């Protein structure tokens, strides 16, 4: 009896300690905040469809029935069967063969970037793409090293399939993902001459985080992954028993003749892993400064739910911290956020998405090619004098005039420099044909950006509310900016001017 009273007391205490606002209905600002943090440039209609929902219902709506496959058909070559194409003859390949191989991979890589940007734009579940991108930046591989676009595509498919699934499943899949096997040199990891690259990043960047393992743990774990390789012809994962080290290893205080999966199991069992991933999700969705008590609480749930990703996201998206005033507008938009978000917000449907992937790359986020194994550092590192001007120029160009440019045909869009025909005479007296082609490629990309159409009056017509100059400004500001604008402007009568002023305000770079 006394025990149950104590328990009841505890429970009621727990109820009090629960986020008090979890069941409060979402205001317009709350809904915009939720959708811009979990998607790309929510429209007025998107936002209104969430206003009035409870925090819990809104989180459930975002998390229920998320797709595991992309809507947008991938480039044709992704479904080609048969062996992977390498440069013929490998090391002995002629210069032409190598060049042709490189050009092909470059072209395919650009097509992949365009495909993903398109999917981000049209998906019914922007959160799925956001999480796919999050995991791309967690389990980093780059086409710069992997080279084979096919393998980058397959990795992206795996990331999406598990993006809102189970972290443990995803970790096991990534450890044997062919692009990862190449990227972190697992294929070079052999008994007797272990390559520690994968084992080190596994502990430092994928699971525990720095400071929770020793150099010896890395060395021992590397031995457990010896023999994890890929079959060159199919590009599939393969285990090579002859180069696997079957000896006894000690990892994080546990000893046995472990194989790679058993090491993953040890890492998954550590609380540091759940906390490390939770902290990273916090920085992605909530603020740059994780609250350690909340991280521990949410990470515990993550582990209790056996690393179910939806559970941890639900906990984050219904937390007090997520909706708190001091965490509004404190995150910097990534280049993909800015580019895709702007296109989505203003309903811009490009003739070809590649120039927009290019624009994001110019701002420092080249999809499928993070800078190193740590991924894009994000946060303030997104903004320097070079990237800030690239962002402003992009916005300036998009909103320079109504209906700017004529829509470009998708098939007229060159996807590589090689697709630019050689000129008989190079323009500008450029020194050689290759340079001239590069120049014309960049111009084609710029024309691609100019191909989108924006009709500011039509856009304003879709916004609900009073239709005078001040009313229009206020509504647009509330929709486009996470916090009050930094620059004060006289309310304008010209719709395009209002939009320009808001997107060029520094606050537009925040979410």
């Amino acid at each position, binding site marked *: 009896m006394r025990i149950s009273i104590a328990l009841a007391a505890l429970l009621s205490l727990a109820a009090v300690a629960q986020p008090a606002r979890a069941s409060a209905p979402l205001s317009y600002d709350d809904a915009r905040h939720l959708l811009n943090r979990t998607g790309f440039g929510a429209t007025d209609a998107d936002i209104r469809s969430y206003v009035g929902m409870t925090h819990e219902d809104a989180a459930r709506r975002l998390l229920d029935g998320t797709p595991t496959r992309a809507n947008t058909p991938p480039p044709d070559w992704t479904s080609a069967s048969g062996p992977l194409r390498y440069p013929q003859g490998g090391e002995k*390949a002629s*210069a032409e063969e190598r060049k042709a191989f490189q050009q092909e991979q470059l072209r395919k890589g650009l097509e992949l970037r365009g495909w993903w940007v398109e999917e981000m734009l049209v998906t019914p579940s922007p959160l799925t793409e956001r999480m796919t991108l999050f995991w791309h930046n967690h389990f980093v591989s780059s086409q710069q090293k992997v080279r084979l676009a096919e393998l980058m595509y397959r990795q992206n498919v795996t990331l999406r399939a598990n993006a809102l699934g189970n972290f443990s499943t995803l970790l096991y899949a990534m450890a044997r993902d062919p692009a990862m096997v190449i990227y972190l040199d697992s294929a070079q990891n052999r008994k007797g001459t272990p390559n520690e690259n994968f084992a080190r990043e596994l502990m430092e960047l994928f699971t525990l985080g720095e400071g929770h393992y020793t150099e010896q743990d890395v060395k021992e774990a590397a031995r457990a992954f010896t023999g994890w390789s890929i079959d060159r012809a199919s590009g599939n994962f393969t285990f090579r028993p002859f180069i696997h080290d079957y000896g006894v290893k000690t990892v994080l205080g546990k000893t046995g003749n472990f194989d790679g999966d058993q090491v993953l199991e040890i890492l998954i069992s550590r609380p540091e892993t759940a906390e490390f991933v939770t902290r990273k999700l916090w920085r992605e969705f909530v603020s740059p400064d994780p609250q350690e008590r909340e991280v521990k609480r949410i990470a515990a749930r993550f582990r209790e739910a056996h690393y179910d990703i939806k559970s941890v996201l639900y906990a984050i998206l219904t937390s007090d911290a997520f909706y708190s005033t001091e965490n509004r507008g404190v995150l*910097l938009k990534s280049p993909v956020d800015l580019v895709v978000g702007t296109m989505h917000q203003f309903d811009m449907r490009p003739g070809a998405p590649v120039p927009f992937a290019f624009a994001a790359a110019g701002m420092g986020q080249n999809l499928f090619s993070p800078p190193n194994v740590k991924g894009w550092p994000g946060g303030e590192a997104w903004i320097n*004098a070079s990237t800030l001007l690239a962002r*402003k120029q992009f916005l300036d160009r998009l909103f320079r005039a109504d209906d700017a440019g004529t829509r470009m045909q998708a098939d007229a869009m060159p996807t590589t420099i090689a697709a630019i025909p050689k000129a008989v005479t190079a323009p500008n007296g450029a020194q050689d044909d290759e340079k001239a082609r590069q120049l014309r490629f960049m111009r084609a990309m710029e024309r691609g950006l100019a191909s989108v159409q924006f009709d500011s009056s039509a856009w304003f017509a879709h916004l609900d509310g009073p239709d005078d100059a001040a009313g229009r400004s206020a509504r647009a500001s509330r929709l486009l900016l996470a916090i009050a604008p*930094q620059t004060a402007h006289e309310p304008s009568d010209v719709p395009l001017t209002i939009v320009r002023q808001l997107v060029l305000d520094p*606050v537009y*770079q925040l979410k």
Partner: protein
Amino acid sequence: MNRREFVKLSCTAPLCAITPSLAWAVAPAGAEYRHLLVLIELKGGNDGLNTLVPYADPNYYALRPKLAVPRDQVVQLSDGVGLHPALAPLLPFWTRRELAILQGVGYPQPNLSHFRSIEIWDTASKSEEYLQDGWLTRSFAAAPTPPEFAADGVIVGSPDLGPLAGGGTRAIALTNTEQFLRQARLAVPEGQSHNKALQHILKVEADIVQAASQLNANYAFTTEFPQGPFGNAIKSACQVIANKAGVAVVRVTLSGFDTHSGQLATQARLLGELAAGIVALRSALDELSKWKDTLVVTYAEFGRRPKENLSNGTDHGTASVHFALGGRVTGGFYGEQPALDRLSGDGNPAYAIDFRSVYATVLDSWWGVSSTGPLGGRFKPLPLLRA
């Protein structure tokens, strides 16, 4: 508030001069940022062995049956080595003893990936260490440039900030000054904010505006700059240097050195562009009376494999030769020519000069700021500068 703003603020207060506890924040006495550094990146990994040619070494001709520079074409500098013929325009620098040749610049446990190795060079990290900030960024954080400078550094012709990447530094990237001034009109710094992310944007906007207010695009040089992208970059660099407010470092990039195939023609063209660019740079700096206060240093992610490949090219290598030039440089050889009879298992030479010693030369000897913090250790400067 970052350290620079702190310094600016605190120095407007009268206490600044007499409060010893603030002394850490100001550049150490003797910090000489009027000494200009010009970095030239040889992107792609220049082949050092055909840049400074060991024309008397039979191993060289054995490793390079097709690519070796014939002995009679080498611009001989000593009994053993000489310059690639395309670098002949640099001979006057050598004769005046204003050209230091740094042989075998590299680092332990070399990485053969372009991306990773240039990151190691840019951040001055150890081979297995990942650092966020560039080596110059860390140095400027520890010893700020004068606040009136147009910028800490200007990166010409490349969007990536390289050694100036990361937080806090006032780095500007531009292709030409005219275009930059046009773009900079989009930057309108509006006050301050308590929001950290917003404050960061406002600071970067202010940096852009400050640089734009000092830079000009129309200094009338009589120097004729070479045609082509590198010549244009040198010209833009000179426009930047001509600003009155000052800038500590300018980085230009010459791309295309990744010569896996058809190396002979490509490298000859690039080295020719490099030499012509340096000659023009010197001439323009003379017009500004700045050659005596300028140190030019080349760098690259790596050199190339001594043994040529089957495509008339060379693959990724390790240590390589680099140049330091300037009005106060003591010309001559530094380091050691790679021993071609003692290559590693993958066929690459060992390094003779740690690249961080080159950086220490810049920080300790050229600018008079401490290199140990920014470089994460003690590296001995090369004795290549005169007072």
